[in-house]
């Protein structure tokens, strides 16, 4: 009896082990987190375990995947530069200097251009990643943050936090073609089809504008139970890979919202850490990673069950995340 129970135990253990191997193979990812105060880059796995910690630069903030699949571009705000890291070798392969107060990055791979907001300079910079040449400096309102480029690479959107505007630039002539007036403190801009989603941190909402007319078509106002409107301070917006859900980090409300893209209904609020702002999505659309800026940790949410899976310590002030296969 005892013997057979033991055997069962071993069998069960093996089964669990196999299941875990299959499971982790199916859902595996590696994510990189910039920590703006501790100045390091942490890579984490599916379980949220820190795989590698690398001191990287002073105040690393925005990130974007580079032209090659093993490249990560990182804005080093207090070093006034953007660096290109090879994530396989962990070597910084290239440095783009004189990128004053570089904050948020966007890339257009087909035209190998990088778009950078220069927070302290009231401008955005367009950089040719192949030549390292600065193609344009785009004047904006104060404190530019979010930046996005259309898929066809013809237009650039830059949010000015202080001015409460999104500037629209022609990406060929680099001239401003329109100004979109937003609610208070627009932070991040995200393009989805013919719509531009803008998070208004102090306006406690996400505004949606037509990219054809620039008119406001909709807005999403958040109200998780037990919080007042002015505590909603949304920052990052992310769309899932199926075009069904939008995720919005609600800042001081310590929640992330799941928004139905079609109906704009808020389907779920999930409690995470303090001042949730940066968001990352695993390539298999299964895991949403939320960076909590005031509690120095991150929460991994299982998207299907809509439950937080694990919360672990990041570095000091985690800011941005990029998720690789």
């Amino acid at each position, binding site marked *: 009896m005892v013997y057979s129970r033991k055997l069962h135990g071993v069998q069960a253990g093996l089964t669990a082990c196999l299941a875990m191997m299959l499971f982790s193979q199916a859902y595996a990812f590696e994510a990189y987190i910039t920590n703006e105060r501790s100045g390091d880059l942490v890579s984490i796995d599916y379980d949220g375990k820190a795989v590698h910690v690398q001191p990287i630069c002073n105040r690393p903030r925005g990130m974007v995947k580079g032209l090659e699949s093993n490249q990560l571009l990182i804005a080093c705000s207090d070093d006034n530069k953007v660096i290109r890291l090879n994530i396989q070798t962990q070597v910084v392969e290239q440095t783009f200097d004189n990128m004053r107060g570089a904050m948020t990055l966007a890339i257009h791979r087909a035209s190998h251009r990088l778009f950078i907001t220069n927070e302290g300079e009231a401008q955005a910079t367009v950089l040719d990643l192949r030549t390292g040449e600065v193609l344009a400096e785009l004047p904006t309102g*104060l404190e530019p943050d979010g930046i996005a480029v259309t898929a066809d690479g013809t237009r650039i959107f830059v949010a000015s936090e202080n*001015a409460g505007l999104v500037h629209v630039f022609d990406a060929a002539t680099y001239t401003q073609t*329109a*100004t979109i007036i937003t609610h208070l403190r627009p932070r991040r801009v995200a393009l989805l089809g013919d719509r531009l989603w803008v998070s208004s941190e102090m306006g406690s909402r996400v505004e949606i504008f037509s990219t054809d007319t*620039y008119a*406001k078509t909709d807005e999403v106002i958040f109200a998780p139970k037990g919080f*007042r409107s002015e505590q909603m*301070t949304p920052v990052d917006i992310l769309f899932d890979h199926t075009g069904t859900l939008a995720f919005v980090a609600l800042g*001081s409300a310590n929640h992330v919202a799941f928004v139905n893209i079609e109906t704009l*209904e808020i389907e779920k609020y999930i409690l995470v850490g303090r001042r949730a702002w940066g968001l990352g999505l695993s390539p298999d659309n299964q895991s949403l990673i939320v960076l909590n800026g005031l509690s120095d940790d991150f929460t991994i949410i299982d998207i299907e069950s809509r439950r937080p899976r694990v919360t672990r310590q990041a570095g000091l002030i985690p800011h941005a995340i990029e998720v690789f296969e």
Partner: protein
Amino acid sequence: MRALLILCVLAAMSLNAHGAEFHIAIITASDQEQPVRGQSFAGIQTQIDRPVHRAAELALHESSTSFSVFNITPVLRAINLDASANYHSQLKGLHPDSLVIVDTPEDTFIELTHILNQLGLITVNVRHTSPHLRDSLCMETLYHTIPSDRMYFDALVQFLIYSNWRKVLVIHGPSEVDHARAETLNNSLLKFGADVSDVREFTLSHHPDDRDNNKPEFITGGASYDVVAVVDTARDFGRYIQYRTRRARPVVGDVGLVPRGWHRTLERYGAPQLNERYRVFDSQTQLPASEAMSDAEFATWSAIKLITNSLNTIGTGTESLSVKSIMEHPDAQVDLYKGTRGSVRRWNHQLRQPILLTTADAVIAVAPMPKFLHPHHYVDTLGLDEPESVCQLD
């Protein structure tokens, strides 16, 4: 939910040449100012009072992108009142739709609010913190962007309760203002359920006969307390209490942990950018890194930004700007760089805002503290809430 809201969107090219003007006036009365130095002497400065003009210019500098988008021209006037001439005649030339920022001593301020009210001009208090003024000067035209003492002390007491420092020894100065502010502190202590272990008045002397009231070790003796709260408006005495209390207890209030509207070391919510801009935006007069806006300057900046930020939130259109209609609008809002937007309490026209609990070189907490909840508005646990306010404007 899916209400179709089509708001003002404009192409930069299509701007009309006939824009609006935004009139701002700053009223001072420099010949009535007494140097604030209490009874300290020999030129020792315990408080720095800068004119508020720099903060106004910063607010206009920050709003320049908005001004060009909305086609607005700001017009800033500074009037330094001549005390020997009639005030009414010195003010009647102001544009009828001005934002009038008043930075004068209290007596003059009270007189001016009545004159400006007769003239129908929107008036902003950026200096006086007395909750009594919020109640007694209950005027449609008057707004307060400087926090009231009740807001400051409510923030401080929330912090004490949150820290479980419930037994408070109150020490205050002998002046009329100190007595009034100690009373306000007492109201805050009562509101949040702190225990007042004693209330004592200090005497500014070194005479041995007065030692029970003039020696920090004595005035903090013979009582049981978690914390010492000091009310010393002139900064005469309070600054000697820290490190000389009979019991090893923290000191808060006008010294030690001080509630403030703004601080140079706030490191979140975009505050470092604002502090940096304040120092360097004017290339002619750059300030060293130790300098930041005083609370009066921050209140001035807030008042102007309340107007320019509200151009976005109210969406009044692009060809007109009415100070009056913006200030009266329920959706008037301002991004205060303190993590929660500011707006106007309709019952007494106080700007609602978070309060920073600060030491000389750190922001220790931002009030409201966790678990202090209000049924309607997150920051309305600070200051005179609607049921407590004598002034009921709306």
